[in-house]
């Protein structure tokens, strides 16, 4: 397998007066799957299209392997791409679609056919090789698109929200399969998504983007447990926003001292606390009241109102729900894990 590393450095791209990319730096190790995560409009698609050669950067470097490919046209970059919109050629069958890239590479028809069938089998759609795109469901079409993008052994695989048009169940199933296939073929992959759960589930590393720049990049666990900035903490996972006061390297929230991520000026601040770092116990003398309970299977979320009307969400095992019906007086305890604070 000829998988290459990728280095994007200081990429800039302006549309009118919108800075779609504002100095983006991103490295992908060979064989790695990096998810680029961020809210809509933060420049994810632009970054991916620049890497694919479908868009030009105003400035910056794009290095694949050890070559600067900024001046290589899209059709010579050898990158497999799966789009958000359905992109199969409507006049070709599934297997002909997969053969398309191989045909351009002048492979003989028997080699081509065999390879295309292998790829369709790999994505679990070998039985539908002779169907036209209109005869396939959305999920099946994206599988064929994946097979087509991988068939010619691209140096890099690019996926731009390939699952966002699919319904929830297919989405989860297909993302697991994308990961399985990616590990099997070992292709360096950039996966763009605005869905944080998807990014955390699939990636070796997650890069969180904001306004054309990379805000933080790290393993899914790092991103979730030790978000570097309030933006990341709020964008990835649920967070309670609790008023507190910073002194030195701790923040005092609800009478508990929590260690800080990063350094902040002393004074009032808002701490972002994960629901799973909040514990709630029934206590007739407690200051909080349970106002809502939602059951999520093995886990449950309990919303507690404090005397100052702040709402705190706690995540608990469902087994503990019977002791916490709505209206119960409770005590709220925070686990001493590091938290991010935003000023004010």
């Amino acid at each position, binding site marked *: 397998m000829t998988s290459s590393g990728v280095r994007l450095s200081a990429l800039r791209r302006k549309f009118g007066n919108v800075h779609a990319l504002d100095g983006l730096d991103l490295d992908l190790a060979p064989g790695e799957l990096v998810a680029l995560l961020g809210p809509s409009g933060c420049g994810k698609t632009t970054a991916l299209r620049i890497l694919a050669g479908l868009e030009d950067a105003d400035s910056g470097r794009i290095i694949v392997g050890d070559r600067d490919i900024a001046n290589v046209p*899209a059709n010579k970059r050898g990158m497999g*791409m799966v789009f958000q919109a359905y992109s199969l050629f409507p006049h070709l069958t599934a297997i002909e679609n997969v053969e398309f890239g191989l045909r351009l590479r002048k492979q003989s028809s028997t080699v081509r056919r065999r390879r295309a069938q292998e790829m369709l089998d790999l994505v679990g759609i070998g039985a539908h090789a002779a169907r036209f795109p209109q005869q396939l469901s959305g999920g099946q079409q994206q599988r064929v698109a994946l097979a087509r993008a991988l068939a010619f052994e691209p140096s890099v695989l690019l996926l731009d929200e390939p699952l966002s048009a699919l319904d929830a169940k297919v989405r989860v199933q297909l993302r697991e399969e994308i990961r399985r296939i990616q590990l099997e073929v070992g292709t360096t992959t950039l996966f763009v998504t605005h869905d944080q759960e998807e990014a955390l589930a699939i990636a070796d590393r997650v890069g969180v983007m904001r306004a054309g720049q990379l805000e933080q990049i790290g393993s899914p666990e790092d991103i979730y447990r030790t978000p570097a900035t309030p933006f990341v903490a709020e964008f990835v996972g649920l967070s309670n926003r609790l008023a507190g006061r910073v002194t030195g390297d701790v923040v005092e929230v609800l009478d508990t001292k929590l260690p800080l991520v990063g350094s902040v000026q002393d004074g009032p601040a808002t701490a972002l606390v994960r629901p799973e770092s909040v514990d709630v116990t029934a206590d007739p003398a407690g200051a909080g009241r349970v106002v809502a309970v939602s059951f999520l299977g093995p886990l449950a979320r309990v919303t507690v109102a404090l005397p100052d009307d702040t709402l705190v969400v706690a995540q608990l095992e469902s087994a503990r729900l019977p002791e916490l019906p709505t209206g119960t007086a409770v005590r709220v305890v925070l686990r001493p894990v590091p938290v991010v604070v935003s000023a004010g």
Partner: protein
Amino acid sequence: MAGLRQRRVRRQRALRWIVVTLFAVLTLLPLVAMFEFTTRDGWDTWRVFFDWKALGETYPILWTGMKASFWLVLLSVALTLVLLVPTVVWVRLRLPRLRRVVEFVSLLPLTIPAIVLVVGLAPVYAWVVYFVGGSSVTLFLAYTVLALPFAYRSIDAGLSAIDVRTLSEAARSLGSSWATVMWRVVLPNIRSAVLSAAFLTVALVLGEFTIASLLNRANIQVAINQLGKSSATMSVAVSLAALVLAFVLLFLLSFAGRRRNRERKTS
């Protein structure tokens, strides 16, 4: 309730038949009359019409006009498609803001009367004559302009039915040059639109009289007109043949469109 609806459906169906019959009578009657006229004194006219050697000797004007029209059809269709298809695709992919402008420009010929067009074309053709000679076939340049509105509409509609941008980007990322994108991806998916653009151009070129006549060129319609003065039956026979050919083309056109739809649904 149900009875009412049924009665209404029946009434609508009756109305539909009346309209279709009326239309058929009104269009077919002149054709039948033309046919009757050409065969009133036997089948000689048609015998000569299908014996091209005799036709050329007996009616040299007609033969010249038919030959000119044949080349005009071929060249106009070729030039229209070669100019229009890549341009419209390119505008869609790269210059979406120019789409309105291109649409406006391509619809202009429709709004200008042929007489006025001739006034503008005359000096242009003075140059054409200077550079490539005065052959009637050079009319294809003017006819391409005339065909532009119809061909543009047709091709643009065909492109609207597919996601050209995504398809061509997919093809690019798979390694296609722009020529391959056009040939292997865009064209196969707008085949019926291109066909209908071609048919419309053919019908237009076969029926054009004003410009050819005013610029003193010979095409089939000009020949028919001149022949009408000396040999009425042959001129009517040729008109009839041209009309039938146009009908057949338009019929093929709707057939091509229908077949494409069925393919989309079932295969």
